[in-house]
């Protein structure tokens, strides 16, 4: 990103949460998945949510996507309610598993949202070609999901989320099930993709290096009740080769994330 676009993106928060609460009623009594969450996500941000399981990071992402309804507080996406934003195709969602439909080829899987949203055939084909190229899967369109490796499948699912040109990309531990080597590679590719498309990305992870490597903003969360303990604006440059992870700046941010987790008693039993 150039300096000019960086300034431009400072201005407008795309996602705003104010005092957000979400309580699940279960048989064992209420569970406070989110409590008093305040957060602004600006246009073009790459925001990671990190914390131990049960800290509400996935729940928060699902609230943004209108897959869960908060029980208190306010949240807006592009100035609208999450429900309206979803109908306006504000975001693409990438799940932990690739979730490609096995009876559709990669190409047809990417066309799925386009068919549902009523794009015409020529436009569908054009977009499929574009996003396949974007995730480096050109030529794999005719393959069935099981013919691809796990990493390639996850890239295809990212392509599917990009196909209808949403400004926001929500990713729920998308690389959690992959081995570390594949993960490094995909992280690097994701950063390139982000630089090319200038999307706003919400990224849930439980890996500290992954969060620090990818993000412009790291949201540290802790459980019982799920809340934000720290928000760290990354001082790292936008250009990030993999070996940036050995620099003192990187280690310093990682240290701060760890401190934030400790402050939230994330390491307690």
């Amino acid at each position, binding site marked *: 990103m150039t300096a000019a676009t960086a300034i431009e993106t400072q201005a407008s928060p795309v996602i705003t949460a104010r005092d957000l609460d979400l309580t699940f009623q279960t048989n064992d009594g209420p569970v406070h998945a989110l409590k008093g969450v305040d957060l602004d996500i600006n246009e073009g941000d790459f925001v990671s949510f990190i914390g131990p399981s049960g800290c509400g990071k996935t729940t928060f992402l699902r609230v943004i*996507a209108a897959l869960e309804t908060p029980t208190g507080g306010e949240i807006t996406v592009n100035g609208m309610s999450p429900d309206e934003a979803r109908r306006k195709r504000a*975001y*693409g969602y990438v*799940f932990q598993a690739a*979730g490609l*439909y096995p009876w559709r*080829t990669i190409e047809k899987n990417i066309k*799925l949202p386009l068919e549902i949203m009523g794009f015409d055939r020529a436009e569908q084909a054009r977009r499929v070609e574009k996003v396949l190229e974007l995730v480096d899967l050109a030529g794999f369109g005719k393959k069935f999901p099981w013919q691809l490796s796990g990493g390639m499948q996850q890239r295809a699912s990212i392509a599917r989320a990009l196909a209808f040109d949403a400004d926001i990309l929500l990713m729920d531990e998308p690389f959690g099930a992959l081995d570390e080597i594949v993960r490094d590679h995909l992280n690097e590719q994701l950063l390139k993709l982000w630089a090319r498309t200038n999307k706003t990305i919400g990224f849930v992870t439980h890996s500290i290096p992954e969060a620090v490597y990818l993000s412009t903003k790291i949201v540290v969360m802790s459980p019982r009740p799920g809340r934000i303990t720290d928000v760290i604006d990354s001082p790292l440059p936008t250009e990030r080769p993999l070996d940036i992870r050995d620099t003192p700046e990187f280690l310093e941010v990682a240290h701060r994330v760890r401190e934030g987790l400790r402050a939230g008693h994330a390491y307690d039993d």
Partner: protein
Amino acid sequence: MRNILPILTIVAAILGIWLAAVAPMNFRLALDAATRAGEDVMPATPDEQGETGLVRLMLDNPSVLPAAYNFERPRLPQPQWVLVEIYENTVGLARRCEWQGWSDENDNWTGLSDGCLRVVAHNRSLLFHAWQTMAPTLLGFAIGTGLGILLAVGIVHNRAMDLGVMPWAIASQTIPILAIAPMVIVVLNAVGVQGLLPKSLISSYLSFFPVVVGMVKGLRSPGAMDLDLMRTYSASNSQIFWKLRLPASLPYLFASLKVGIAAALVGTIVAELPTGARFGLGARLLTGSYYGQTVQIWAALLMAAVCAAVLVWIITAVEKRLLTKMGLAR
């Protein structure tokens, strides 16, 4: 082709067991006949024979064994007799079979002489009877499958149907079909419905159930994530059905169809039994049992087995083609 050996092994084993069972099954009948013919048997009177165990009788009267094997109206015939019976009631029915060619005088579209057509048209022909059973089976299977799929779609999409229909579907299968088949035929006959349909309705009654069960399971098979994905696209219920639930259910559907088509065949045969049907494999079973013609019964049973095998094979072939095309077969 590589599964031909195991199949042949099983067939050989069945034939072996069958052949071994012929003598003990028919021994008492043969002994009875030998006693009446004044042969020297041990023990000498039918009453004493009745009180003696089968093994004892066989050991004491080895001379009767060949007669037991070749008994004329046996309880259990030799397997090759059944094959002969099938041959005689199919290909063996042809008389003066010749190619006549197509011409205006010949109103028969096959171009074969009427003598040839006896193979499928004669009222003793097993192929004729098999078709009399197959036609209502296919119609009943179509009705049952259609009904089953519709019910399953309703059950998955409507909570009232989910709670209301399933218990009735299960209850319907606990009613002995043999008991209600004559009533169905009589009632339908009274309102003027005859021919194929009454038998088909009974066969659809048996075949809809596996389709409902399998299809409900299949339509519900997509996981929470698959459904969430659809929600993020704001997909409508009908889009979710056509693009997710239906394709996901197909492997389940085919498993059910295989059970359903076999049940449909059984349903048709059962429908023929208590209703005095004149044609069909069930009718052959019935007349066979009236006249003590076990060979005829076995021939009809074997024919029914062949029909079932063919039907299941057709479904398997369609399944394989479709699922391969969908990338679901590996």
